[in-house]
C-alpha cells in the first residue's frame, strides 16, 4: 500500500495537478459503504448455482444504482468475477460493469485498472468481447484523458490476434473509437502505442471473418469522423473490398471509398490494365457507380445515395452515368430520348408511328464496345430502373443534388426525371417532381417533355397535382405552343378536380408573369376575340375563364402592348378580379383608365404599396383620438375596424396584420363601451343588464387576447406585452363587475389577491418593457401598488375603476411579418345529402383533409373537434404522422376521425372543426420569464399560477350528415 501511495505521490508531482481532485473523490467514495452493494454481496454469496447467481444479477440490473454506491458495487462484482467459474455469469458481470460505468456523474477511471486486469486470465471469448465492450464504455466516458485511451488501445491491440471474431470485432471498435487522432500525441506517447492505428486497422481489412472486416472498415470510418485524416494508401485496399462476398462489407467499403474521394479528390491514380491515370474522385465515382448494379439492394441504396454528394467529379464522367450506349444487333441505336430531341429540333410533328422507327443506325466496332467495365456508364439509368423503390428514390435524390451543382447535367438528366413521373410508386413520383422543381431554374422544358409532365396533371392524388403545380410555377417553357398546352391541360385538370382551383390559379399567375412574350400571341385566341365581330361575353364566375384571365393579366404586367388586344368586357372583368382576387391579379397600367395607385404614387416610396400605407394611416388616426369625445372615439374605432377587416380580405399579404390590429381595436372598443360613464353611476342591482354587457365584454376581450397571442405567427415580445396588458385590463374589469354584483366581502378578498398577484407577475415578466408604457393602466397601477396592497377590496375596486377609465390607449407596434393561422377543411365538404350510416355502438371512420397555414408546431397544437347534436363534444388529437409539410408555413392534415353514437331516429348533422390548443404556460411570455430570470436574477420563480389551457376554433365548422342505425338483432 505504501508503495502504491508513493507512486501516487510521485505521479502528482510530475503530472497535472488536476488529478488531485480525482484522487480525493475516489478516496471519499471508498469510505462510503452503501447498503446496495451489501445487499448484492449477500445475494451473490447466497447463490448456490450459476443459474441462481445469474438470476440475482438480472434482478439487480433492473434497478438503478446511485452514483455514490457505484464503485462499491463494482468492487463486489469484480470479487465475484474472479471466483466465478461459469462463463455466462462472468459475461453478465462484465456487461453490468459496462452499464454501471455509464452511470451519470461517475468517473470510471478508478475501476479501469481492475477491468483491464480481468482481461488477463479470461478464456471465454464471449466474456472477453464483453469486457472489451466495457472498456470501450469506460474509454468513452473519459474523453480528455489521452493516457488512459492509449492504454486501452494497447490492450485492444494485444487482443487483436484472438481467434474469435467477436473479440476482434470489439477490439477494432475500441481502436476506432479511442485511437489517437492527432499525430503529435501518438509520437509523444510510449513507443508501443506510437504504432500507427490506421496501419493496425488496415491489416484487418483482409481478415477471414466478414464481420471483422466490416468492423475494421467501420473503425476506420469512425477515426475519420473523429477527425483523423485517413491515408490515401488505403484506397487500393478499399477498392478490393468492393468485390467482397458479403454485403455489409461492400456497403461499408463504399462509404470508405466515398470518404477517401472527398479527402483526396485531386490526387492521381493509375487505371489498371492501361497506363493511363485519372483523378481519384473520378475513379471512386466510377467504382461507386458500379455498385449501383450490385446484387444486394442495401449496397445499391448506399451507393446511389453517395453518388449525389460527389460534386467534384468531372462533367465527362458525370454525363456518362446517363448514357447506357444502346445498341441493337451490334449497331448503335439512339435512345428514345435522343429520338424525341431530334424530332423536336427537326421541326417534324409526328411521333414514331412506323415500325422500325427506332431502327439502329451505324455499325459498331465490336472491339470498342465495352459491356461492363465502363464504370460510370449508365449508373443512373440502372438506378432509376431498379426493382426496389428505395434505390429509385435514392437515385432521384442523387440526381437532384448533382443537377443542382451542374447546369449541363441538369439539362441532360431532365428526360430521366420526366420519365420518373410515371413510376408505379407514388412516393417516387412525388420525389421526382420535387427534384425537378428544385433544379428548374437551370432548365427549360422542351415541348415533348412538357407534354409528359402535363400528363401527370390528371393524377388522382392531390399531393402529386399540387407538387406539379408548384413545379409549373417555376418552370421555363420555350415556345408559345408550350404555354398553350400547359393552359389547356391545367383547364382540363380544373374541370376534373374543381378543388384544385386556387392552386391552378396561382400556378397560372406565375406562368403568365414568367412568359409574357409567349403569352402575347396567344391572347386573341384565349380571349376568343375577333377582329370584326363581337363575341359573347364569357361568364365571369367560370373558374376556367378566371384562370385564363389570371394568366393574361399577369403576362400583361410586363408587356404593355397586351391591353390593346383586350375587349371592353375584359377591362370590366379586370376591375372586378382586381378587387375580388387581388392576390392573383397584379395592378395594370391600362390605357384610358386611371390607375388606382397613380393618384398617390408621387408621395409614397416605391417599396411601400398603397394598401400598407392605408393601414398605417388609419392606425395613426386611431392613436390620436384622445382629442375626440367618447362618442366620436367609438365611431372612429368602429369605422377603422370595418376598414381593416375589408383590407384584410382584399390584400392577402396584409391580412394577418389587418386582422391583428382590428382585433386589438375591437378589444379597445369593447373596453370603452363597458366603461361608459352612466353605467357605473347607478346602484348595481338595478343595472343587471348593463352588468351583463360589461362582463360579457370582459370575457370577450379575454378570448380575443388569447387569439392574438396564439393564433398569429411572427408576434414579437413588444406585441405580447400589449396583449397581456389588454388582458390585465379585462381582468380588472371583471373584478370590478363582480365586486359590484356580489354581496359580502369574503369572495372579493381572494379575487383581489389574485389580481394583484397577476399584476405582480406581469411586472416581473415585462420589466424591460415598462418604460414604454407611460400613462398606461399598468403604469398607473404600479404607482398605486403600495396603496393597493394595504387597502380593502372595496377600495381596491374603486381605485381600479378610476385608473381604468383614466388610462391611455397603448399603441400597438406592428411586426414585420404577421400571419394569422388559418385552417381550411377540404374534406368532408359538408355538401353531401347522403347521411353516413353506421350501426350504433360501432365506429365509423370519417376522412378529414385540411390545409393549415402559418401554424407553428401543428403536431402539438391542432386538434379536431366533433360536436354532436346533443351538445356532446369530442376532441381528437391527430397523430404526428398525419401532418405533412408541403411548403414553408403550410401544413396538410390528413387523418381519420372515429365517430360513434347511440342510435338516432333520423339522420342529423354533426359539426367538425379544427381547434388550436394553447397553454399560457408554454407561451412566449413564460419563455421570456425563464430567460430573464436566468440572466438577471437567480431567484426561483413560482410556477406560473395562471397556466390556462384552452382552445381557439380556427376553421369554419363543416357539417356532416350521419345516421347511427340501431343494431339489428
Amino acid at each position: 500500500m505504501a508503495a502504491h501511495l508513493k507512486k501516487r505521490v510521485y505521479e502528482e508531482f510530475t503530472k497535472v495537478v488536476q488529478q488531485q481532485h480525482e484522487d480525493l473523490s475516489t478516496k471519499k467514495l471508498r469510505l462510503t459503504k452503501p447498503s446496495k452493494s451489501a445487499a448484492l454481496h449477500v445475494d451473490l454469496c447466497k447463490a448456490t448455482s450459476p443459474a441462481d447467481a445469474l438470476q440475482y444479477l438480472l434482478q439487480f440490473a433492473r434497478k438503478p444504482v446511485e452514483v455514490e454506491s457505484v464503485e462499491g458495487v463494482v468492487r463486489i462484482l469484480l470479487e465475484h468475477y474472479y471466483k466465478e467459474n461459469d462463463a455466462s455469469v462472468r459475461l453478465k458481470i462484465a456487461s453490468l460493469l459496462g452499464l454501471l460505468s455509464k452511470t451519470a456523474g461517475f468517473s470510471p477511471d478508478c475501476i479501469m485498472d481492475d477491468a483491464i486486469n480481468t482481461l488477463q486470465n479470461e478464456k471465454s471469448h464471449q466474456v472477453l468481447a464483453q469486457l472489451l465492450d466495457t472498456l470501450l464504455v469506460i474509454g468513452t466516458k473519459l474523453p480528455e484523458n489521452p493516457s488512459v485511451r492509449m492504454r486501452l488501445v494497447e490492450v485492444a491491440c494485444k487482443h487483436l490476434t484472438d481467434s474469435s471474431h467477436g473479440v476482434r470485432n470489439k477490439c477494432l471498435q475500441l481502436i476506432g473509437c479511442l485511437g489517437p487522432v492527432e499525430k503529435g500525441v501518438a509520437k509523444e506517447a510510449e513507443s508501443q502505442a506510437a504504432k500507427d492505428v490506421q496501419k493496425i486497422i488496415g491489416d484487418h481489412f483482409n481478415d477471414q471473418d466478414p464481420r471483422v472486416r466490416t468492423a475494421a472498415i467501420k473503425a476506420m470510418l469512425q477515426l475519420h469522423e473523429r477527425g483523423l485524416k485517413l491515408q490515401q494508401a488505403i484506397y487500393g485496399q478499399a477498392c478490393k473490398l468492393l468485390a467482397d462476398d458479403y454485403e455489409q462489407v461492400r456497403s461499408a467499403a463504399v462509404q470508405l471509398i466515398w470518404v477517401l474521394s472527398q479527402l483526396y479528390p485531386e490526387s492521381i491514380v493509375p487505371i489498371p490494365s492501361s497506363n493511363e491515370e485519372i483523378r481519384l474522385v473520378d475513379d471512386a465515382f466510377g467504382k461507386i457507380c458500379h455498385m449501383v448494379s450490385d446484387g444486394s439492394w442495401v449496397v445499391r441504396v448506399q451507393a446511389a445515395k453517395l453518388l449525389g454528394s460527389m460534386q467534384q467529379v468531372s462533367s465527362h464522367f458525370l454525363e456518362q452515368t446517363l448514357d447506357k450506349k444502346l445498341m441493337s444487333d451490334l449497331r448503335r441505336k439512339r435512345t428514345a430520348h435522343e429520338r424525341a430531341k431530334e424530332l423536336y429540333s427537326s421541326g417534324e410533328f409526328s411521333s414514331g408511328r412506323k415500325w422500325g422507327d427506332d431502327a439502329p443506325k451505324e455499325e459498331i466496332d465490336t472491339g470498342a464496345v465495352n459491356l461492363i467495365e465502363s464504370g460510370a456508364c449508365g449508373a443512373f439509368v440502372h438506378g432509376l430502373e431498379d426493382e426496389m423503390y428505395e434505390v429509385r428514390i435514392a437515385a432521384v435524390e442523387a440526381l437532384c443534388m448533382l443537377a443542382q451543382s451542374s447546369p449541363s447535367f441538369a439539362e441532360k438528366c431532365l428526360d430521366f426525371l420526366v420519365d420518373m413521373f410515371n413510376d408505379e410508386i407514388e412516393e417516387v413520383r412525388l420525389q421526382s417532381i420535387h427534384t425537378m422543381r428544385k433544379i428548374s431554374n437551370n432548365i427549360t422544358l422542351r415541348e415533348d417533355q412538357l407534354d409528359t409532365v402535363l400528363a401527370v396533371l390528371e393524377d388522382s392524388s392531390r399531393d402529386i397535382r399540387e407538387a406539379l403545380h408548384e413545379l409549373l410555377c417555376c418552370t421555363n417553357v420555350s415556345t408559345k405552343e408550350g404555354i398553350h398546352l400547359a393552359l389547356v391541360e391545367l383547364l382540363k385538370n380544373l374541370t376534373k378536380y374543381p378543388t384544385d382551383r386556387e392552386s391552378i390559379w396561382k400556378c397560372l399567375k406565375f406562368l403568365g408573369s414568367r412568359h409574357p412574350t409567349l403569352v402575347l400571341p396567344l391572347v386573341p385566341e384565349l380571349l376568343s376575340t375577333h377582329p370584326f365581330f363581337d363575341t359573347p361575353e364569357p361568364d365571369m364566375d367560370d373558374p376556367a375563364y378566371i384562370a385564363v384571365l389570371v394568366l393574361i393579366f399577369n403576362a400583361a404586367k410586363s408587356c404593355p402592348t397586351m391591353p390593346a388586344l383586350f375587349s371592353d368586357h375584359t377591362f370590366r372583368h379586370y376591375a372586378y378580379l382586381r378587387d375580388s382576387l387581388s392576390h392573383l391579379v397584379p395592378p395594370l397600367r391600362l390605357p384610358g383608365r386611371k390607375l388606382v395607385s397613380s393618384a398617390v404614387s408621387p408621395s409614397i416610396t416605391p417599396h411601400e404599396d398603397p394598401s400598407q400605407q392605408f393601414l398605417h394611416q388609419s392606425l395613426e388616426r386611431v392613436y390620436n383620438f384622445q382629442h375626440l369625445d367618447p362618442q366620436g372615439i367609438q365611431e372612429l374605432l368602429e369605422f377603422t375596424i370595418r376598414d381593416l377587416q375589408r383590407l384584410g380580405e382584399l390584400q392577402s399579404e396584409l391580412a394577418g396584420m389587418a386582422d391583428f390590429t382590428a382585433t386589438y381595436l375591437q378589444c379597445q372598443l369593447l373596453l370603452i363601451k363597458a366603461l361608459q360613464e352612466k353605467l357605473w353611476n347607478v346602484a348595481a342591482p338595478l343595472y343587471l343588464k348593463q352588468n351583463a354587457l360589461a362582463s360579457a365584454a370582459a370575457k370577450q376581450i379575454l378570448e380575443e387576447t388569447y387569439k392574438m397571442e396564439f393564433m398569429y405567427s411572427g408576434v414579437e415580445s413588444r406585441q405580447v406585452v400589449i396583449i397581456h396588458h389588454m388582458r390585465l385590463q379585462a381582468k380588472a374589469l371583471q373584478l370590478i363587475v363582480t365586486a359590484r354584483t356580489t354581496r359580502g366581502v369574503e369572495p372579493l378578498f381572494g379575487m383581489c389577491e389574485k389580481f394583484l398577484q397577476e399584476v405582480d407577475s406581469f411586472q416581473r415578466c415585462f420589466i424591460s418593457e415598462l418604460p414604454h408604457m407611460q400613462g398606461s393602466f399598468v403604469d398607473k397601477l404600479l404607482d398605486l401598488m403600495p396603496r393597493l396592497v394595504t387597502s380593502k377590496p372595496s377600495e381596491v375596486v374603486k381605485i381600479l375603476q378610476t385608473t381604468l377609465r383614466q388610462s391611455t390607449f397603448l399603441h400597438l407596434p406592428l411586426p414585420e411579418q404577421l400571419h394569422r393561422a388559418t385552417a381550411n377543411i377540404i374534406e368532408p365538404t359538408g355538401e353531401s345529402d347522403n347521411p353516413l350510416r353506421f350501426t350504433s355502438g360501432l365506429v365509423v371512420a370519417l376522412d378529414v383533409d385540411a390545409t393549415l397555414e402559418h401554424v407553428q408546431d401543428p403536431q402539438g397544437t391542432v386538434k379536431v373537434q366533433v360536436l354532436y347534436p346533443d351538445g356532446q363534444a369530442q376532441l381528437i388529437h391527430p397523430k404526428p404522422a398525419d401532418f405533412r409539410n408541403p411548403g414553408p408555413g403550410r401544413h396538410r392534415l390528413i387523418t381519420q376521425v372515429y365517430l360513434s353514437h347511440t342510435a338516432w331516429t333520423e339522420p342529423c348533422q354533426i359539426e367538425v372543426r379544427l381547434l388550436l390548443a394553447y397553454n399560457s404556460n408554454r407561451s412566449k411570455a413564460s419563455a421570456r420569464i425563464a430567460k430573464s430570470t436566468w440572466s438577471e436574477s437567480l431567484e426561483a420563480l413560482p410556477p406560473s399560477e395562471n397556466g390556462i389551457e384552452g382552445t381557439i376554433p380556427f376553421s369554419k365548422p363543416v357539417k356532416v350528415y350521419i345516421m347511427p342505425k340501431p343494431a339489428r338483432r
Partner: protein
Amino acid sequence: MPEIKVTPLGAGQDVGRSCILVSIAGKNVMLDCGMHMGYNDDRRFPDFSYITQNGRLTDFLDCVIISHFHLDHCGALPYFSEMVGYDGPIYMTHPTKAICPILLEDYRKITVDKKGETNFFTSQMIKDCMKKVVAVHLHQTVQVDEELEIKAYYAGHVLGAAMFQIKVGCESVVYTGDYNMTPDRHLGAAWIDKCRPDLLISESTYATTIRDSKRCRERDFLKKVHETVERGGKVLIPVFALGRAQELCILLETFWERMNLKAPIYFSTGLTEKANHYYKLFITWTNQKIRKTFVQRNMFEFKHIKAFDRAFADNPGPMVVFATPGMLHAGQSLQIFRKWAGNEKNMVIMPGYCVQGTVGHKILSGQRKLEMEGRQILEVKMQVEYMSFSAHADAKGIMQLIRQAEPRNVLLVHGEAKKMEFLKQKIEQEFHVSCFMPANGETSTILTNPCIPVDISLGLLKRETAIGPLPDAKKPKLMHGTLLMKDNSFRLVSPEQALKELGLAEHQLRFTCRVHIQDPRKEHETVLRVYNHLKGILKDYSVQHLPDGSITVESILIQATAHSEDQGTKVLLVSWTWQDEELGSYLTSLLKKGLPQST
C-alpha cells in the same frame, strides 16, 4: 481431371426447343424439355434417341428440370415422359407447375383438334406427366439423391421462371433458363448470389443489344392509349395469353386508377382468366410494389378490366380491348380488328414480334389494304403502333448476371450463333473465363478442378493451427497428419489415431552415430566434459547427466566408451529418433568439431 459435359439437344445456337443435357460428376440432368414453334414435323421435339437408343430413359437421367412454363421450354414434356417413357423426377417451381398444364392443354387442342394431327399426346398424358412433377420453392435446396442437389433462384421473365443451380459435391452448374435483369410492372429482376459455379449456362437472346430504359416505352404506350381513348377511339391490343398480357394489364390498370379514367378495358376470356387466377395466387413471385400493396388490394384483381363479350365490340364510345392471339392471324383479335380497322380514330398496338405472313406483320410493314379471305379488301384506316416489351436480359444484363455469379466457365445457349460469337468474345475479354457455345448435338467438355473435402478432427485442427502465425483466410496452410481414405471418405487424423484405427504397431526409427574424440582421460571425465560443453552451448535445451554415465539432450542419448584398441580415443555414441532429426544432426556436427581445449 473430372469434367462436366454439356450437350444441347435444342437451343444450341438456336432459339426454341430448349433441351440441354448435362453430365456432372457421374450424374445426368436434363434442363428444359421444349418444343420448336417453327416446325410441325418431328423436328419440333428434341431428339431423345440421342440419350439412349434402346434402354429406358429413366436409367440414364437422374432428373429433369423445367425453368418456366413457356412452350419452348416445356412443350415436349408429356411426349418425353409418357410417349418416350421417363419415370424419374421432374422439377419445376410451383407457379410453373400450376400454369404449365393449361398451356400444354391449349397447345394440344390447337395441334390435335384444329390441325387434326394424330399420334400426339393426350390430355390424360398431360395429367400423368404432371403427377411426376416435384414442385420446389425459391432458394430451397432439394436433394435429388444423396449427391445431387438443386436449388432455384428468381429469374423474372414470367411468373414462376427460375434459374437452377445443380450441384454434385463441389462441382456445380447454374442454368438460367430465360431471365430478365430489369424489373417490369409485375415481376422483379433476376437475382443470384455469388455461388461461383463451375459452369454458367446462360440464355443469350439479346446478346448484341443494349436496351433503352423501360420507362420510355411504357410512357409512350400509355400516352398513345390515353390519347386515343380521349378522342373517343377504340384501342385493340393483340396479345398472347400469358406474361406480357399481365404486364400490360397492370400497366393500364394502374394508369386508369391514377388518372381516374372511366373508359372500359376488356380482356378476352378463356385461358387468360384461369391464368390471372394463378397470378393472384402467386403474389410472392411478383415485384415489390405488388407484394407490398396486396394486403390492401391484390393488383391482379383488376378493378377496371372486365371480361370481354363479343357483343361489346359494337358498343359506341372509347374502349381498350386485349384480345388473343398476338399476331392477328386468327381468332378474336382478328375479328375485332376487322370491325375497327375502318375508323381512323381507332388504334391497334402490337406489343410484340410478328411472324411473316400474318396480318400483324403486314400492317406493321405499312400495308394499308389487306386482302381477307373471300377476296374481300379491308382498308386499314386505324392507326398502327408497335411497342416492344421483351422480358429477356440484354447484353448488359447478361454481363451483370455473370458478374454476380462469378462462374469459372460460361456456356451460351438460346440465341443466334452470330450474336453469341460477339458476346462470347466480350465475356472472355472482360471476365477472363472461357466461354462455350455448342450447336445442337455438339458436346462441350469443361474441365473442372474440384476441391475435395477432407474431414479433420477438431483436436488436430486446433493443435495444428496453434503452431505458427494466425491462419490467413486467403492463404493455404500446411498441416501434418495422416490422410485416411476409407469408405469413400477422406479424413485427416493424427498419426497415433491412424495407427490405432488401422491396428498397426508403431515402429521406432532411430539414428545412431559414433563420434570419435581424442581424449586421454577416463571415460566418466570425458562424459563430464562433453556434458559441460553441451550445457554451455545448448542453453535452451534440457541437458542432463544421468547416473549411469550417459547424457540426454531432450530425448537424444549420448554414451561414451573407450575405444577398444586405442584408449586415448573415446567413442561417443549419439542416438536419436527421426522426430528429433534436426537436433540430432546438429549435435553430431557439434561433437565432430571436437571439445574445446580445457585448462
